[in-house]
């Protein structure tokens, strides 16, 4: 009996590993192909001259390993580094602002009692659920009022006030035992003190999780930047990568690896926060 059982586990493990390899395929291909020369990449992926029974060559192993893609990405022209820097300039303020704004608001929604709280939170959830294409017009209207349609602020400001952070942090704060807050109140602490010294230390994993999710989301932004940033010099690298299909295929893979690296590192070191950061209490109440 035991033998059969361990057989079964082994088969399941093998199956799981197969799934995992398939899962990793896009990343593996992107990584290995980044060591191909530009000529090889273009030969492999150009479809224009292919006949009916011919296929692109999605090779895992390069015919000749070279760092030429990375060399032209990093040294030939400053444009790519510049666009990378543009991404940083958009994402960092959003992540920091989102945390600074959301954490106190989530505290207010969790601990304070005031009229209309439920309805207000309901509105937050609705706005959170609206697709980007719906909020794009309101964003554009405001950007127009403020005269910032051509600047990063048109993306950064709505990003900071995105209700997602408030929602997720409140989920987390709700799971804290009330006793801590009650005890602090008994000792005469005001809400500011309770928030800073009692609640914040308890939800720091949640804050890390929200910061990571915001980072992952805006690092790959495409839609907003297409609308708000016309000038290609100030576009973030994510937009450039979206255009690789037409044109500079040669350095596409190195560009992708280069761009994915910072967020991969964040995931590597922060995945524990994602798994423990979001507490599991109900949506309401």
């Amino acid at each position: 009996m035991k033998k059969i059982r361990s057989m079964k586990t082994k088969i399941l493990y093998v199956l799981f590993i197969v799934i995992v390899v398939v899962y990793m395929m896009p990343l593996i291909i992107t990584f290995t192909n980044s060591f191909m020369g530009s000529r090889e990449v273009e030969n492999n992926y150009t479809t224009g001259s292919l006949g009916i029974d011919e296929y692109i060559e999605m090779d895992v192993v390069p015919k000749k390993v070279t760092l030429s893609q990375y060399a032209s990405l990093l040294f030939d022209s400053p444009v790519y580094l510049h666009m990378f820097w543009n991404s940083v300039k958009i994402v960092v303020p959003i992540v920091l602002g989102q945390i600074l704004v959301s954490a106190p608001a989530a505290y207010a929604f969790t601990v304070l009692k005031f009229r209309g709280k439920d309805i207000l939170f309901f509105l937050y959830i609705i706005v959170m659920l609206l697709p980007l294409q719906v909020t794009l017009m309101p964003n554009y209207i405001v950007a127009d009022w403020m005269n910032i349609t051509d600047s990063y602020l048109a993306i950064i400001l709505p990003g900071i006030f995105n209700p997602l952070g408030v929602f997720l942090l409140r989920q987390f704060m709700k799971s804290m035992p009330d006793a801590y807050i009650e005890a602090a109140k008994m000792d005469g602490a005001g809400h500011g003190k309770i928030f800073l010294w009692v609640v914040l230390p308890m939800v720091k994993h949640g804050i890390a999780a929200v910061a990571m999710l915001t980072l992952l989301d805006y690092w790959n932004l495409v839609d907003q930047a297409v609308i708000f940033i016309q000038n290609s010099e100030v576009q973030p690298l994510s937009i450039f990568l979206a255009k690789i299909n037409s044109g500079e295929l040669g350095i596409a893979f190195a560009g992708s690896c280069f761009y994915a690296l910072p967020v991969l590192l964040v995931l590597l070191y922060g995945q524990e926060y994602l798994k423990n950061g979001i507490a599991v209490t109900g949506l309401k109440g």
Partner: protein
Amino acid sequence: MLLVSLSGFCFFYMIPFLVSSFYSFVDNPIHREFCGVQNFRALFQNPYFLRGLKNTAWFMLVSIPLNMVLSLCVAFVVKNMKVYSNYFSLIFLIPLAVPSATSAFFWENFFGLHGTLNRFLSVFHVECIDWLESSYGMMVMVIIFIWKNIGYNMALFISGLSSIPEEYYECADVEGAGRFWKFKNITLAYLTPTTFLVLIMTFVNSFKVFKEIYIITGEYPPDSLYVVQHYMNNMFLSLNYSKLASATYILTIVIVLFVVCIFRAERKYSENLHY
């Protein structure tokens, strides 16, 4: 404490959102002549809008439940692994870090007419088709969506599973409960709050798959891939604010109804829970 967030929320979302309602009742943004509900009526006769709505609904009905079930399975497997469980969960989270453009490029080449899938199938003498252009297009999008979003749902489910006290299972063992009984009455029951959170997050993310569709197909995709965001995006680009605002309101009403249903359901199910 709420003030900063609330003022920003009102200024950047609520107020402009209400202002945009103005556009939905005028015939066009320049003449600004009041025309009642004509825009809404026209929208319900517009074949593109209806197609977008239909495709979006179809996509969500298939992809959201499928995604939730699969991520729960993965969470189970990963959580019960004795070794390397961290590495495996990282693997499922990786798609979140892959730039959308990169994954779009990969899947386009995988499912394209000259793509890798066809190359593989040609060994079995299956006729080549462009999967994205075919009626299977939406299936491909479901696959891409699930590929990208299992990881985060898995993380939520793992934290939900870890929060169920071991004693519950031990008690059930003492009483001689079967595996299925334990799964249904302990695991699933106490995962209810997590499940609702996952549902909300999956819903949010299901709109974001548009990014990949857009990168792959551009502004005018094949009919089977035309979702409601294409319509809105094109209305925005062609400065047709009246139609856009009306479409916005219709979509918002649908979402409000959806959220109300979820809250009702959640209240009903969590009443039976005793911690």
